[in-house]
Protein backbone atom coordinates (compact mmCIF):
# COMPACT_ATOMS: atom_id res chain seq x y z
CA UNK A 1 0.00 0.00 0.00
CA UNK A 2 2.90 2.24 0.85
CA UNK A 3 4.43 1.67 -2.55
CA UNK A 4 1.23 2.71 -4.28
CA UNK A 5 0.98 5.84 -2.14
CA UNK A 6 4.53 6.87 -2.97
CA UNK A 7 3.83 6.17 -6.65
CA UNK A 8 0.77 8.41 -6.43
CA UNK A 9 2.78 11.21 -4.79
CA UNK A 10 5.60 10.80 -7.30
CA UNK A 11 3.20 11.11 -10.23
CA UNK A 12 1.63 14.20 -8.69
CA UNK A 13 5.01 15.84 -8.09
CA UNK A 14 6.15 15.14 -11.64
CA UNK A 15 2.90 16.53 -13.07
CA UNK A 16 2.96 19.73 -11.02
CA UNK A 17 6.64 20.65 -11.40
CA UNK A 18 7.97 22.78 -14.25
CA UNK A 19 7.50 20.99 -17.57
CA UNK A 20 4.93 18.64 -16.09
CA UNK A 21 2.13 20.15 -18.10
CA UNK A 22 -0.64 19.83 -15.51
CA UNK A 23 -1.95 23.34 -16.11
CA UNK A 24 -1.75 23.06 -19.89
CA UNK A 25 -5.03 21.13 -19.84
CA UNK A 26 -6.89 23.98 -18.11
CA UNK A 27 -5.34 26.46 -20.53
CA UNK A 28 -6.50 24.39 -23.48
CA UNK A 29 -9.95 24.13 -21.88
CA UNK A 30 -10.07 27.93 -21.66
CA UNK A 31 -9.05 28.19 -25.31
CA UNK A 32 -11.86 25.87 -26.43
CA UNK A 33 -14.45 27.73 -24.34
CA UNK A 34 -13.37 31.12 -25.70
CA UNK A 35 -13.15 29.94 -29.32
CA UNK A 36 -16.70 28.63 -29.55
CA UNK A 37 -18.47 32.01 -29.03
CA UNK A 38 -16.38 33.40 -31.90
CA UNK A 39 -17.68 30.58 -34.09
CA UNK A 40 -21.36 30.60 -33.06
CA UNK A 41 -21.70 34.33 -32.37
CA UNK A 42 -22.13 36.35 -29.18
CA UNK A 43 -25.82 35.50 -28.69
CA UNK A 44 -26.02 34.81 -24.94
CA UNK A 45 -29.29 32.89 -25.18
CA UNK A 46 -27.81 30.46 -27.65
CA UNK A 47 -24.57 30.20 -25.65
CA UNK A 48 -26.37 29.48 -22.39
CA UNK A 49 -28.28 26.70 -24.14
CA UNK A 50 -25.07 25.27 -25.61
CA UNK A 51 -23.12 25.85 -22.38
CA UNK A 52 -23.00 22.34 -20.91
CA UNK A 53 -22.16 20.88 -24.32
CA UNK A 54 -19.32 23.38 -24.80
CA UNK A 55 -17.88 22.66 -21.36
CA UNK A 56 -18.13 18.92 -21.92
CA UNK A 57 -16.46 19.04 -25.33
CA UNK A 58 -13.70 21.24 -23.92
CA UNK A 59 -13.12 18.84 -21.02
CA UNK A 60 -13.19 15.84 -23.37
CA UNK A 61 -10.66 17.33 -25.78
CA UNK A 62 -8.24 18.58 -23.16
CA UNK A 63 -8.39 15.23 -21.34
CA UNK A 64 -7.69 13.27 -24.52
CA UNK A 65 -4.91 15.57 -25.69
CA UNK A 66 -3.11 15.45 -22.34
CA UNK A 67 -2.97 11.67 -22.27
CA UNK A 68 0.27 11.13 -24.14
CA UNK A 69 2.14 12.11 -20.98
CA UNK A 70 0.56 9.31 -18.94
CA UNK A 71 3.06 6.56 -19.81
CA UNK A 72 5.29 8.25 -22.39
CA UNK A 73 7.62 10.14 -20.04
CA UNK A 74 8.08 7.07 -17.83
CA UNK A 75 8.92 4.97 -20.84
CA UNK A 76 11.54 7.40 -22.08
CA UNK A 77 13.55 7.40 -18.83
CA UNK A 78 13.07 3.68 -18.22
CA UNK A 79 10.90 4.08 -15.11
CA UNK A 80 8.06 2.20 -16.77
CA UNK A 81 10.19 -0.92 -17.27
CA UNK A 82 11.14 -0.80 -13.59
CA UNK A 83 7.49 -0.43 -12.56
CA UNK A 84 6.38 -3.31 -14.78
CA UNK A 85 9.31 -5.43 -13.66
CA UNK A 86 8.71 -4.72 -9.97
CA UNK A 87 6.27 -7.63 -9.78
CA UNK A 88 3.42 -5.51 -8.50
CA UNK A 89 -0.02 -5.93 -9.96
CA UNK A 90 0.09 -3.87 -13.14
CA UNK A 91 -3.65 -3.17 -13.07
CA UNK A 92 -3.32 -1.51 -9.65
CA UNK A 93 -0.32 0.46 -10.85
CA UNK A 94 -2.38 1.73 -13.78
CA UNK A 95 -5.24 2.70 -11.44
CA UNK A 96 -2.84 4.66 -9.22
CA UNK A 97 -1.20 6.37 -12.18
CA UNK A 98 -4.59 7.25 -13.70
CA UNK A 99 -5.90 8.65 -10.41
CA UNK A 100 -2.78 10.77 -9.98
CA UNK A 101 -3.04 11.96 -13.58
CA UNK A 102 -6.70 12.82 -13.06
CA UNK A 103 -5.91 14.73 -9.85
CA UNK A 104 -3.29 16.75 -11.71
CA UNK A 105 -5.16 17.34 -14.98
CA UNK A 106 -8.84 16.38 -14.60
CA UNK A 107 -9.64 17.96 -11.25
CA UNK A 108 -8.43 21.43 -12.36
CA UNK A 109 -10.89 21.20 -15.27
CA UNK A 110 -13.76 20.51 -12.88
CA UNK A 111 -12.67 23.39 -10.64
CA UNK A 112 -12.32 25.76 -13.61
CA UNK A 113 -15.67 24.77 -15.13
CA UNK A 114 -17.90 27.05 -12.94
CA UNK A 115 -15.61 29.97 -13.76
CA UNK A 116 -15.76 29.33 -17.49
CA UNK A 117 -19.52 28.78 -17.34
CA UNK A 118 -19.89 32.51 -16.61
CA UNK A 119 -18.53 33.24 -20.10
CA UNK A 120 -21.38 31.17 -21.45
CA UNK A 121 -24.10 32.85 -19.37
CA UNK A 122 -25.25 29.54 -17.93
CA UNK A 123 -28.01 29.55 -15.28
CA UNK A 124 -26.90 28.49 -11.75
CA UNK A 125 -28.78 25.19 -11.85
CA UNK A 126 -26.97 24.07 -15.01
CA UNK A 127 -23.63 25.21 -13.62
CA UNK A 128 -24.16 22.95 -10.62
CA UNK A 129 -25.19 19.93 -12.65
CA UNK A 130 -22.43 20.43 -15.21
CA UNK A 131 -19.75 20.57 -12.53
CA UNK A 132 -21.23 17.52 -10.82
CA UNK A 133 -21.34 15.51 -14.07
CA UNK A 134 -17.80 16.60 -14.96
CA UNK A 135 -16.65 15.44 -11.52
CA UNK A 136 -18.19 12.02 -12.09
CA UNK A 137 -17.46 11.77 -15.82
CA UNK A 138 -13.89 12.99 -16.32
CA UNK A 139 -12.33 10.06 -14.39
CA UNK A 140 -14.04 7.79 -16.91
CA UNK A 141 -12.42 9.73 -19.74
CA UNK A 142 -9.00 9.38 -18.11
CA UNK A 143 -9.50 5.65 -17.47
CA UNK A 144 -10.57 5.06 -21.07
CA UNK A 145 -7.78 7.27 -22.33
CA UNK A 146 -5.25 5.20 -20.38
CA UNK A 147 -6.04 2.35 -22.79
CA UNK A 148 -5.07 4.52 -25.75
CA UNK A 149 -1.97 5.84 -24.01
CA UNK A 150 -0.88 2.28 -23.17
CA UNK A 151 -1.54 1.03 -26.71
CA UNK A 152 0.60 3.73 -28.27
CA UNK A 153 3.31 3.72 -25.60
CA UNK A 154 5.97 2.27 -27.91
CA UNK A 155 5.32 4.84 -30.63
CA UNK A 156 7.30 8.00 -31.18
CA UNK A 157 4.36 9.87 -32.66
CA UNK A 158 1.27 8.38 -31.06
CA UNK A 159 -0.18 11.76 -30.13
CA UNK A 160 -2.97 12.03 -32.66
CA UNK A 161 -3.74 8.32 -32.67
CA UNK A 162 -4.95 8.26 -29.05
CA UNK A 163 -8.01 10.51 -29.56
CA UNK A 164 -8.93 8.60 -32.74
CA UNK A 165 -8.82 5.28 -30.91
CA UNK A 166 -10.56 6.45 -27.75
CA UNK A 167 -13.25 8.84 -28.99
CA UNK A 168 -15.79 6.08 -29.87
CA UNK A 169 -15.55 4.77 -26.30
CA UNK A 170 -16.08 8.28 -24.90
CA UNK A 171 -19.43 8.71 -26.69
CA UNK A 172 -21.57 7.25 -23.85
CA UNK A 173 -19.81 9.46 -21.28
CA UNK A 174 -20.50 12.53 -23.41
CA UNK A 175 -24.13 11.58 -24.08
CA UNK A 176 -25.05 10.91 -20.45
CA UNK A 177 -22.94 13.78 -19.12
CA UNK A 178 -24.48 16.44 -21.35
CA UNK A 179 -27.98 14.96 -20.97
CA UNK A 180 -27.77 15.07 -17.17
CA UNK A 181 -26.42 18.63 -17.24
CA UNK A 182 -29.13 20.02 -19.53
CA UNK A 183 -32.15 17.99 -18.41
CA UNK A 184 -32.39 19.91 -15.15
CA UNK A 185 -33.77 22.92 -17.04
CA UNK A 186 -36.76 20.98 -18.37
CA UNK A 187 -37.50 18.73 -15.43
CA UNK A 188 -35.47 18.47 -12.19
CA UNK A 189 -36.44 14.81 -11.83
CA UNK A 190 -34.94 14.05 -15.26
CA UNK A 191 -31.47 14.56 -13.83
CA UNK A 192 -31.09 11.24 -12.09
CA UNK A 193 -31.53 8.73 -14.88
CA UNK A 194 -28.69 10.05 -17.07
CA UNK A 195 -26.59 10.90 -13.99
CA UNK A 196 -26.82 7.36 -12.63
CA UNK A 197 -26.09 5.95 -16.09
CA UNK A 198 -23.05 8.25 -16.25
CA UNK A 199 -21.90 6.96 -12.88
CA UNK A 200 -22.36 3.38 -14.14
CA UNK A 201 -20.32 4.12 -17.26
CA UNK A 202 -17.62 5.66 -15.06
CA UNK A 203 -17.43 2.59 -12.82
CA UNK A 204 -17.33 0.35 -15.87
CA UNK A 205 -14.48 2.42 -17.35
CA UNK A 206 -12.67 2.13 -14.01
CA UNK A 207 -12.72 -1.66 -14.44
CA UNK A 208 -12.18 -2.05 -18.19
CA UNK A 209 -9.57 0.72 -18.48
CA UNK A 210 -6.92 -0.61 -16.08
CA UNK A 211 -7.32 -4.23 -17.25
CA UNK A 212 -6.96 -3.32 -20.92
CA UNK A 213 -4.21 -0.77 -20.31
CA UNK A 214 -2.21 -3.30 -18.27
CA UNK A 215 -2.62 -5.90 -21.03
CA UNK A 216 -1.50 -3.36 -23.62
CA UNK A 217 1.53 -2.35 -21.53
CA UNK A 218 2.60 -5.98 -21.11
CA UNK A 219 2.28 -6.51 -24.85
CA UNK A 220 4.01 -3.29 -25.77
CA UNK A 221 7.07 -3.52 -23.56
CA UNK A 222 8.54 -7.02 -23.87
Amino acid at each position, binding site marked *: MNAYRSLFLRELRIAVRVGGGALMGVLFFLIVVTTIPFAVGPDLNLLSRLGPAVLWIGALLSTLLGLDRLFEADREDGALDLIVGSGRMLELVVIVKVLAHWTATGLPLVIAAPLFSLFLAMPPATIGTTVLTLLVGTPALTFLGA*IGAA*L*TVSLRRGGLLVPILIL*PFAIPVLI*FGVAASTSVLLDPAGFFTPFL*LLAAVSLMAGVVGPIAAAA*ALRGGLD
Partner: protein
Amino acid sequence: MALTLTELANPTRFMGLVTRALPYLAGATVLLFAVGLILVAGAPEDYQQGMTVMIMYIHVPAAWLSMFTYGMMAASAIGTLVWRHPLADVSAKAAAPIGAAFAFLCLFTGSLWGKPMWGTWWEWDARLTSMLVLFIMYLGLIALWRTIEDPTRAARAAAVLILVGTVNLPIIKFSVDWWNTLHQPASVFRMDGPTIDPSMLWPLLVMALAFTALLVTLHWMAMRNEILRRRVRALGLMAAGGAR
Protein backbone atom coordinates in the same frame (compact mmCIF):
# COMPACT_ATOMS: atom_id res chain seq x y z
CA MET B 1 -6.92 -34.59 -47.29
CA ALA B 2 -8.23 -34.91 -43.75
CA LEU B 3 -7.33 -31.58 -42.22
CA THR B 4 -7.42 -31.28 -38.47
CA LEU B 5 -7.70 -27.88 -36.85
CA THR B 6 -4.05 -27.91 -35.75
CA GLU B 7 -2.90 -28.56 -39.29
CA LEU B 8 -5.14 -25.77 -40.53
CA ALA B 9 -3.52 -23.45 -38.03
CA ASN B 10 -0.13 -23.99 -39.64
CA PRO B 11 0.44 -21.05 -42.02
CA THR B 12 1.97 -23.17 -44.80
CA ARG B 13 -0.89 -25.69 -44.65
CA PHE B 14 -3.32 -22.80 -44.62
CA MET B 15 -1.75 -21.33 -47.76
CA GLY B 16 -2.12 -24.68 -49.52
CA LEU B 17 -5.76 -24.95 -48.48
CA VAL B 18 -6.48 -21.42 -49.71
CA THR B 19 -4.89 -22.13 -53.08
CA ARG B 20 -6.99 -25.25 -53.52
CA ALA B 21 -10.27 -23.86 -52.18
CA LEU B 22 -10.18 -20.39 -53.73
CA PRO B 23 -11.59 -21.26 -57.20
CA TYR B 24 -14.59 -23.02 -55.61
CA LEU B 25 -15.18 -20.16 -53.16
CA ALA B 26 -14.99 -17.52 -55.87
CA GLY B 27 -17.30 -19.58 -58.08
CA ALA B 28 -19.82 -20.00 -55.27
CA THR B 29 -19.72 -16.26 -54.58
CA VAL B 30 -20.41 -15.35 -58.20
CA LEU B 31 -23.18 -17.95 -58.43
CA LEU B 32 -24.84 -16.75 -55.23
CA PHE B 33 -24.71 -13.14 -56.36
CA ALA B 34 -26.23 -14.10 -59.73
CA VAL B 35 -29.10 -15.99 -58.06
CA GLY B 36 -29.54 -13.22 -55.49
CA LEU B 37 -29.72 -10.44 -58.09
CA ILE B 38 -32.22 -12.43 -60.20
CA LEU B 39 -34.38 -12.90 -57.07
CA VAL B 40 -34.03 -9.19 -56.24
CA ALA B 41 -35.12 -8.24 -59.76
CA GLY B 42 -38.24 -10.37 -59.29
CA ALA B 43 -39.01 -9.08 -55.79
CA PRO B 44 -42.17 -7.01 -55.35
CA GLU B 45 -42.38 -3.29 -54.61
CA ASP B 46 -42.94 -2.24 -51.05
CA TYR B 47 -46.35 -0.61 -50.63
CA GLN B 48 -44.80 2.25 -48.65
CA GLN B 49 -41.34 2.65 -50.11
CA GLY B 50 -41.87 1.68 -53.74
CA MET B 51 -38.83 0.43 -55.59
CA THR B 52 -36.37 2.07 -53.19
CA VAL B 53 -36.79 -1.07 -51.12
CA MET B 54 -34.30 -2.58 -53.58
CA ILE B 55 -31.57 -0.70 -51.73
CA MET B 56 -32.36 -2.88 -48.71
CA TYR B 57 -30.92 -5.95 -50.44
CA ILE B 58 -27.48 -4.32 -50.29
CA HIS B 59 -27.86 -2.17 -47.21
CA VAL B 60 -29.02 -4.85 -44.78
CA PRO B 61 -26.51 -7.58 -45.75
CA ALA B 62 -23.70 -5.00 -45.62
CA ALA B 63 -24.80 -4.04 -42.09
CA TRP B 64 -24.99 -7.69 -40.98
CA LEU B 65 -21.63 -8.53 -42.48
CA SER B 66 -19.84 -5.52 -40.99
CA MET B 67 -21.04 -6.62 -37.54
CA PHE B 68 -20.25 -10.27 -38.25
CA THR B 69 -16.73 -9.29 -39.33
CA TYR B 70 -16.21 -7.48 -36.03
CA GLY B 71 -17.34 -10.60 -34.19
CA MET B 72 -14.87 -12.65 -36.18
CA MET B 73 -12.11 -10.19 -35.32
CA ALA B 74 -13.04 -10.42 -31.64
CA ALA B 75 -12.66 -14.23 -31.80
CA SER B 76 -9.29 -13.76 -33.52
CA ALA B 77 -8.25 -11.25 -30.84
CA ILE B 78 -8.87 -13.89 -28.16
CA GLY B 79 -6.71 -16.25 -30.21
CA THR B 80 -3.95 -13.66 -30.29
CA LEU B 81 -4.04 -12.85 -26.58
CA VAL B 82 -4.66 -16.32 -25.16
CA TRP B 83 -2.81 -18.68 -27.52
CA ARG B 84 -0.55 -16.08 -29.13
CA HIS B 85 -1.16 -17.77 -32.44
CA PRO B 86 0.28 -15.80 -35.38
CA LEU B 87 -2.55 -16.82 -37.73
CA ALA B 88 -5.11 -15.31 -35.35
CA ASP B 89 -3.64 -11.86 -35.85
CA VAL B 90 -3.29 -12.45 -39.59
CA SER B 91 -7.02 -13.22 -39.62
CA ALA B 92 -7.97 -10.11 -37.64
CA LYS B 93 -5.72 -7.80 -39.63
CA ALA B 94 -6.95 -9.13 -42.98
CA ALA B 95 -10.59 -8.80 -41.90
CA ALA B 96 -10.42 -5.14 -40.81
CA PRO B 97 -10.39 -3.43 -44.25
CA ILE B 98 -13.16 -5.75 -45.48
CA GLY B 99 -15.29 -4.98 -42.43
CA ALA B 100 -14.63 -1.27 -42.92
CA ALA B 101 -15.68 -1.58 -46.58
CA PHE B 102 -18.96 -3.26 -45.57
CA ALA B 103 -19.62 -0.59 -42.93
CA PHE B 104 -18.92 2.12 -45.50
CA LEU B 105 -21.27 0.44 -47.98
CA CYS B 106 -23.97 0.26 -45.31
CA LEU B 107 -23.59 3.98 -44.51
CA PHE B 108 -23.46 5.01 -48.15
CA THR B 109 -26.54 3.04 -49.21
CA GLY B 110 -28.29 4.10 -46.00
CA SER B 111 -27.71 7.70 -46.94
CA LEU B 112 -29.02 7.07 -50.46
CA TRP B 113 -32.05 5.32 -49.00
CA GLY B 114 -32.60 8.11 -46.50
CA LYS B 115 -32.80 10.89 -49.09
CA PRO B 116 -36.02 9.71 -50.81
CA MET B 117 -37.52 8.20 -47.62
CA TRP B 118 -36.66 10.74 -44.90
CA GLY B 119 -35.84 13.71 -47.14
CA THR B 120 -32.27 14.10 -45.82
CA TRP B 121 -28.97 12.48 -46.68
CA TRP B 122 -28.12 11.88 -43.07
CA GLU B 123 -30.38 11.29 -40.10
CA TRP B 124 -28.88 10.88 -36.61
CA ASP B 125 -30.92 7.73 -36.37
CA ALA B 126 -29.70 5.34 -33.69
CA ARG B 127 -28.80 2.58 -36.14
CA LEU B 128 -26.98 4.81 -38.60
CA THR B 129 -25.08 6.47 -35.75
CA SER B 130 -24.02 3.13 -34.29
CA MET B 131 -22.85 2.02 -37.73
CA LEU B 132 -20.85 5.25 -38.06
CA VAL B 133 -19.19 4.52 -34.72
CA LEU B 134 -18.37 0.98 -35.89
CA PHE B 135 -16.89 2.42 -39.10
CA ILE B 136 -14.72 4.83 -37.08
CA MET B 137 -13.57 1.95 -34.88
CA TYR B 138 -12.54 -0.03 -37.96
CA LEU B 139 -10.56 2.97 -39.23
CA GLY B 140 -8.90 3.41 -35.82
CA LEU B 141 -7.88 -0.26 -35.77
CA ILE B 142 -6.44 -0.04 -39.29
CA ALA B 143 -4.55 3.10 -38.25
CA LEU B 144 -3.16 1.29 -35.20
CA TRP B 145 -1.96 -1.65 -37.33
CA ARG B 146 -0.33 0.72 -39.78
CA THR B 147 1.44 2.78 -37.11
CA ILE B 148 3.09 0.03 -35.06
CA GLU B 149 5.85 -1.47 -37.16
CA ASP B 150 6.64 -4.65 -35.24
CA PRO B 151 3.96 -7.23 -36.18
CA THR B 152 3.78 -9.04 -32.81
CA ARG B 153 3.49 -5.77 -30.91
CA ALA B 154 0.85 -4.47 -33.33
CA ALA B 155 -0.99 -7.79 -32.97
CA ARG B 156 -1.24 -7.51 -29.18
CA ALA B 157 -2.21 -3.84 -29.25
CA ALA B 158 -4.89 -4.41 -31.88
CA ALA B 159 -6.24 -7.44 -30.02
CA VAL B 160 -6.60 -5.42 -26.81
CA LEU B 161 -8.38 -2.63 -28.68
CA ILE B 162 -10.71 -5.07 -30.46
CA LEU B 163 -11.73 -6.67 -27.16
CA VAL B 164 -12.26 -3.30 -25.47
CA GLY B 165 -14.46 -2.46 -28.44
CA THR B 166 -16.41 -5.68 -27.98
CA VAL B 167 -17.10 -4.77 -24.35
CA ASN B 168 -17.99 -1.18 -25.22
CA LEU B 169 -20.06 -1.62 -28.38
CA PRO B 170 -23.23 -2.66 -26.50
CA ILE B 171 -22.82 0.33 -24.15
CA ILE B 172 -22.32 2.70 -27.08
CA LYS B 173 -25.34 1.19 -28.83
CA PHE B 174 -27.47 1.60 -25.71
CA SER B 175 -26.36 5.19 -25.12
CA VAL B 176 -26.99 6.14 -28.75
CA ASP B 177 -30.47 4.58 -28.65
CA TRP B 178 -31.19 6.46 -25.44
CA TRP B 179 -29.82 9.74 -26.83
CA ASN B 180 -31.81 9.39 -30.02
CA THR B 181 -35.15 8.81 -28.31
CA LEU B 182 -34.42 11.75 -26.04
CA HIS B 183 -33.90 14.12 -28.95
CA GLN B 184 -36.51 12.98 -31.43
CA PRO B 185 -39.30 10.88 -29.97
CA ALA B 186 -40.51 8.28 -32.45
CA SER B 187 -40.70 10.64 -35.41
CA VAL B 188 -38.27 8.56 -37.41
CA PHE B 189 -39.75 6.55 -40.18
CA ARG B 190 -38.67 3.01 -39.43
CA MET B 191 -36.62 1.42 -42.14
CA ASP B 192 -37.86 -2.06 -41.46
CA GLY B 193 -41.43 -3.08 -40.86
CA PRO B 194 -42.17 -5.31 -37.90
CA THR B 195 -42.57 -8.23 -40.24
CA ILE B 196 -41.09 -8.87 -43.63
CA ASP B 197 -42.94 -10.63 -46.40
CA PRO B 198 -41.45 -13.96 -47.59
CA SER B 199 -41.30 -12.57 -51.13
CA MET B 200 -38.75 -10.07 -49.84
CA LEU B 201 -37.16 -12.32 -47.21
CA TRP B 202 -35.85 -14.89 -49.71
CA PRO B 203 -33.94 -12.44 -51.93
CA LEU B 204 -32.58 -10.80 -48.78
CA LEU B 205 -31.35 -14.11 -47.35
CA VAL B 206 -29.73 -15.16 -50.63
CA MET B 207 -28.02 -11.78 -50.92
CA ALA B 208 -26.81 -12.09 -47.32
CA LEU B 209 -25.42 -15.53 -48.16
CA ALA B 210 -23.71 -14.13 -51.25
CA PHE B 211 -22.13 -11.33 -49.20
CA THR B 212 -20.98 -13.92 -46.64
CA ALA B 213 -19.35 -15.98 -49.40
CA LEU B 214 -17.71 -12.80 -50.66
CA LEU B 215 -16.42 -12.05 -47.18
CA VAL B 216 -14.91 -15.54 -46.80
CA THR B 217 -13.29 -15.39 -50.25
CA LEU B 218 -11.79 -11.94 -49.75
CA HIS B 219 -10.78 -12.70 -46.18
CA TRP B 220 -8.85 -15.82 -47.17
CA MET B 221 -7.17 -13.99 -50.04
CA ALA B 222 -6.22 -11.10 -47.75
CA MET B 223 -4.91 -13.58 -45.13
CA ARG B 224 -2.73 -15.19 -47.79
CA ASN B 225 -1.36 -11.74 -48.69
CA GLU B 226 -0.68 -11.00 -45.04
CA ILE B 227 1.24 -14.27 -44.56
CA LEU B 228 3.28 -13.47 -47.67
CA ARG B 229 3.91 -9.93 -46.40
CA ARG B 230 5.26 -11.31 -43.13
CA ARG B 231 7.53 -13.74 -44.94
CA VAL B 232 8.85 -10.89 -47.10
CA ARG B 233 9.46 -8.87 -43.95
CA ALA B 234 11.23 -11.74 -42.18
CA LEU B 235 13.38 -12.49 -45.23
CA GLY B 236 14.19 -8.80 -45.66
CA LEU B 237 15.36 -8.63 -42.04
CA MET B 238 17.45 -11.80 -42.54
CA ALA B 239 18.98 -10.38 -45.71
CA ALA B 240 19.81 -7.13 -43.93
CA GLY B 241 21.32 -9.09 -41.04
CA GLY B 242 23.39 -11.26 -43.41
CA ALA B 243 24.74 -8.27 -45.30
CA ARG B 244 26.05 -6.72 -42.12
